[in-house]
């Protein structure tokens, strides 16, 4: 008798869990574009500034080029509060463990943007102390070339990242 009852309750539990999964999937499917839309227009950036590209980062963040139009104007100087890691400048071998730790401290979902040719490929620093691109340390979403890049290029790169975020699937947590 007791075994039968147990089985019965199991069935009920299974049905409930099926229903929950179904409902969750439906909601996620409907909510995904909305959540992505919210994420792409509220990117909180962590500027990991190591070199001269920092000047261009300041320029693109200032009113003339106005990163605020894209919702990414708010630099957070704690990786815990940031969604977007701006790698601005040359990454040396000495700097690489620090960059990886900062990236590991960021909470998911997170994106990485390589700002300038040094962060993308190492640039012309093909020498003993420079990492040949930040993607050898952490995965990078968007590469912006230029030495330094024009602010228009940066904004273009940011728009590419926004498109990428809008197209994302399966990163919704309900």
């Amino acid at each position, binding site marked *: 008798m007791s075994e039968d009852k147990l089985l019965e309750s199991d069935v009920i539990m299974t049905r409930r869990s099926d229903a929950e999964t179904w409902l969750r999937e439906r909601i996620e499917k409907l909510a995904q574009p909305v959540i992505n839309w919210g994420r792409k227009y509220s990117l909180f950036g962590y500027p990991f500034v190591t070199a001269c590209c920092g000047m261009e980062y300041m320029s693109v963040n200032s009113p003339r080029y106005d990163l605020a139009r894209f919702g990414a104007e708010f630099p957070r100087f704690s990786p815990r509060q940031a969604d977007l890691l701006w790698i601005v400048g040359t990454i040396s*071998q000495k700097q*690489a*463990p620090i960059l990886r730790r900062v990236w590991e401290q960021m909470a998911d979902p997170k994106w990485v943007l390589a700002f300038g040719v040094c962060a993308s490929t190492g640039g012309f620093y*093909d020498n*003993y*102390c420079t990492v040949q691109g930040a*993607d*050898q*340390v952490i*995965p990078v979403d968007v590469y912006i070339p230029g030495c330094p890049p024009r602010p228009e290029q940066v904004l273009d790169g940011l728009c590419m990242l926004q498109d990428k975020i809008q197209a994302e699937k399966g990163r919704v947590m309900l």
Partner: protein
Amino acid sequence: MAQIVLDRLRRKFGDAILETHSEHGDDTAVVTRDKLVEIALFLRDDPELQLNSPVDCTAVDWQGRRDVRFDVVYHLTSIAKHHRVRIKVRVSENDPTCPSLTPIWRGMNWHERETWDLYGIRFTGHPNLKRVLMYEEFVGHPLRKDYPIDKRQPLIQMRNVKMVPTQKNPPPDRINQP
């Protein structure tokens, strides 16, 4: 410009000054390693010279030069007298040591550490001779000419990134073209 410095040095030390030359207003004296501290003290304390500001200390690797491979180069300037001078010391590969001038000019501290870091010149008498630019795990001295040009020593495991092949030898008409 600072011919007075070279003249006084030659008059005072004679044989210890191996060579002097003046090119475009840059006056250089090559001195022996044994007399370096004495000469440096004279340059600092002599009332007519007063070379009180240590601008730089670096080295030059003349790989293949007979006997003495390295030049250790000091740049000194006088804020009071508005002249400057360059002192060179020749150092061999087997014994790359040089007396430290940090006790004479405190500002030489990090310059000598940098020279140790990048060229491997040991400064005897330096209070804290350790690497200043490279990390402690680094092996070798990267600005020496025999350091392999493409050798890197990463501190962490690098990700395996597929490199996009580049065109090694562009055709002649592509060189210097936008």
